[in-house]
């Protein structure tokens, strides 16, 4: 039998249940599948099911990838002074980015991405340039047993500002693996806002890894929404390299059926006076499984760090489960670090209150879910995006 490791060779072994980082997210089923990368030469054409612009009414620059390959005709690139925004396959000479993160040296998933990566975004914002619209990367998977390995690179120079949206979708009959990496570095006083949305039909194993490096007084804000996905693993790693950085990263996941959603985050404070705030909320429906693992490191010299982490979960149905592991590793003393993690259910008193005022149970529950998600969703700066995400959540769960 042909297995995945025969097709995609690697020196690192695939993770097993015994690997601490993967103990709640087994991938044995994926390993038994036979996948290949998209080999068609045709540029153009898209699925009938999904529009090239996934967010109605959102005015954004757009890069469309289909099964990992860049699609020119559907993309809309910015032409602005001080902005380089193009597919990596078209970057030449000195500009070709060098990926610095160690993910490809330490993890099987990372190594595969490095060995087989196809294309991705190359975005560079010059000093004090603020891009007027968000840059939207839309990744579509519409093949059977297809593997795609996108790799994106973002650099924001001093004082620059940009908003990037990474949206992945797939058709109902699709299957395979999405293995994407995004590497960003943010120069002093620059700001990067990142929204990552996974809205995939079909049976895709979705691995994504974001590696963010923050320099002095830079700001980073990120939202991770898993609105739909058969098997999803979101990994976010933020390294604060300069003093006074500010990092905000929130996420929401509402798996249903037998879906699996895993959120791994690492916040690494290596310098002084940094602040970080993390909020992840999950509701597990059906027989789904959710995973949350949040790590906060405060290195020996990172004095006056202020780190906060919160993870709130609801197990909604019998058969659903959540595995949460909020971790703190603190090596400096003048710090304020805390985390909170809860597992519970809908507040019965609140439900009763709403029902006693003539709101039926379904609507009442919807209202409570909306309130539960509000803290995460309301901080998304872009209105259209915010509304679209809420809309999909609502349609999905029939509120």
């Amino acid at each position, binding site marked *: 039998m042909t297995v995945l490791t025969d097709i995609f060779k690697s020196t690192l072994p695939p993770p097993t249940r015994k690997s601490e980082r993967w103990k709640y997210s087994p991938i044995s089923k994926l390993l038994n599948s036979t996948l290949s990368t998209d080999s068609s030469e045709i540029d153009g054409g898209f699925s009938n099911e999904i529009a090239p612009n996934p967010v109605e009414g959102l005015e954004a620059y757009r890069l469309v990838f289909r099964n990992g390959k860049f699609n020119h005709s559907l993309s809309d690139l910015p032409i602005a002074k001080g902005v380089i925004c193009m597919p990596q396959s078209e970057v030449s000479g000195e500009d070709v980015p060098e990926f610095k993160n160690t993910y490809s040296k330490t993890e099987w998933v990372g190594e595969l991405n490095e060995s087989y990566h196809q294309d991705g975004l190359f975005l560079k914002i010059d000093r004090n340039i603020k891009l007027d619209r968000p840059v939207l990367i839309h990744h579509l998977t519409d093949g059977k047993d297809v593997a795609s390995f996108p790799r994106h690179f973002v650099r924001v120079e001093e004082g620059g500002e940009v908003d990037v949206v990474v949206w992945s979708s797939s058709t109902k009959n699709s299957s395979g693996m999405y293995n994407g990496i995004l590497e960003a570095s943010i120069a002093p006083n620059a700001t990067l806002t990142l929204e990552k949305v996974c809205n995939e039909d079909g049976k895709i194993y979705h691995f994504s890894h974001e590696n963010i490096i923050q320099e002095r007084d830079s700001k980073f804000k990120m939202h991770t929404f898993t609105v739909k996905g058969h098997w999803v693993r979101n990994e976010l790693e933020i390294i604060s390299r300069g003093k006074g950085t500010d990092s905000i990263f929130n996420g929401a996941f509402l798996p249903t059926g037998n879906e699996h959603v895993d959120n791994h985050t690492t916040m690494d404070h290596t310098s002084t006076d940094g602040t970080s705030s993390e909020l992840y909320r999950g509701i597990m429906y059906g027989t789904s499984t959710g995973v949350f693992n949040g790590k906060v490191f405060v290195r020996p010299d990172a004095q006056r760090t202020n780190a906060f982490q919160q993870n709130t979960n609801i197990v909604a149905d019998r058969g659903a489960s959540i595995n949460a592991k909020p971790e703190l*590793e603190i*090596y400096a003393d*003048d710090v304020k670090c805390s985390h909170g993690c809860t597992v519970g259910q809908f507040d019965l008193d609140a439900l009763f209150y709403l029902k006693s005022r003539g709101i039926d149970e379904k609507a009442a529950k919807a209202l409570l879910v909306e309130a539960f998600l509000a803290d995460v969703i309301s901080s998304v700066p872009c209105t259209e995006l915010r509304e679209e995400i809420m809309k999909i959540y609502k349609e999905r769960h029939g509120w």
Partner: protein
Amino acid sequence: MKGTEEENLLSEVTEKNYEYGFTTEIESDTIAPGLDESVIRTISKKKNEPDWLLEWRLEAFAAWTKMEEPEWAHVAYEKPDLQSISFYSAPKQKKELASLDEVDPELLKTMDKLGISVEEQKKLSGVAVDFVMDSVSVATSFKETLGELGVIFCSLGEAIQEHPELVRKYIGTVVPQRDNYYAALNSAVFTDGSFCYIPKGVRCPMELSTYFRINQAGTGQFERTLIVADEGSYVSYLEGCTAPQRDENQLHAAVVEIISHDEAEVKYSTVQNWYPGDKDGKGGVFNFVTKRGICHRSAKISWTQVETGSAVTWKYPSCILKGDDSIGEFFSVAVTNNKQQADTGTKMIHLGRRTRSTIISKGISSGESQNSYRGLVQIHPGAENARNFSVCDSLLMTDRCGAHTFPYIEAKTPTAQIEHEATTSKIGEDQIFYCQQRGIEEEEAIGLIVKGYAKDVLNKLPMEFAVEAQKLLTISLEGSVG
């Protein structure tokens, strides 16, 4: 705190030598270092054990040889060479002891140095002391009083001789032989420990206490404690440790098993102050302990621990909440100083309906030590309406120490409620300032704040222990604590 003052305090703390570091000279009966099947046969023979127990030990040994030493804990140390330690050491029995007065005067002197006079304790505090000097119990008090109620409190070796049916029924039921590397090792080579049985409906009138000491140079300690509380009974059990100063690392791999039957309650308190090594991290005890209890219907197990000693600690007192409405509790203060490393916490396994657990863990790190909390809260699908509440706080005293939290939360039922929170901070300068304003010296103020910080746990200790625990906290952090 001002830089220089802090340095002064710090140097005082770090230069503080281990107060209880003295060795008692008693003739010992020690077998040659090393471990193989013949060693296990020798131990079993020396202790005149029945065949089933020897078989049981050999099974454990066979399992152990296939196991690897775990490396997942957040500690770094040189693995002990098991072939260089002696697995059996017993003070030479001179004659049968009828009362404490006949105990070797050397032993009594040791106890005096530790601050506990056995006789005084016997008279004043009503505590029965099963004094374990190295691996064999040499003195047990209050046996008669307990005997009237049907309470069995003796060394495990004695229990194997006199109550083999009880030992056979319960041993290994909570911590199986192949549970983990050190539990398997313990099952193979355990020399002695305590055994305690409380019959149905009996409320044990006094606190049962064992004073463990590691004494013989080059001897690993493999204690095994078995506590069985029958239906509706209650017992409070105390375990305390101090060890003499040594230069080579000593290994301690104990196993504690608790069975709490329907509606029974067991309160297990520990004060642990083994030799932590000197300020450069030389020497010190390795403490790799497996402690676990099982709760049947409406039963309760409460673990309270004050950990100040050992170079490396690896210890997770756990509760399996099997019966409906059962309760598990874990209260812990762990203090690390100099180069100590502690990876400690608890596991609460919820199986029964309406089971409840509470975890309160307070870590205090000083010097260059690393202090980790590692815990697991697991709610199985059948554990409807299970409830857990956890608080893990860490206090950092210097800028070179570390405090870490690794909680695992696994929930598989929609009616479970779990709350976990953790904070890490240093003593607030405003708190110290407030105290100083009111005429309290800085050092005293720090002491006040630390004691207040650990109060939630110290309050759970039995009176006799609370005093000692306070003393240990003070000694461990002397210089920064008043």
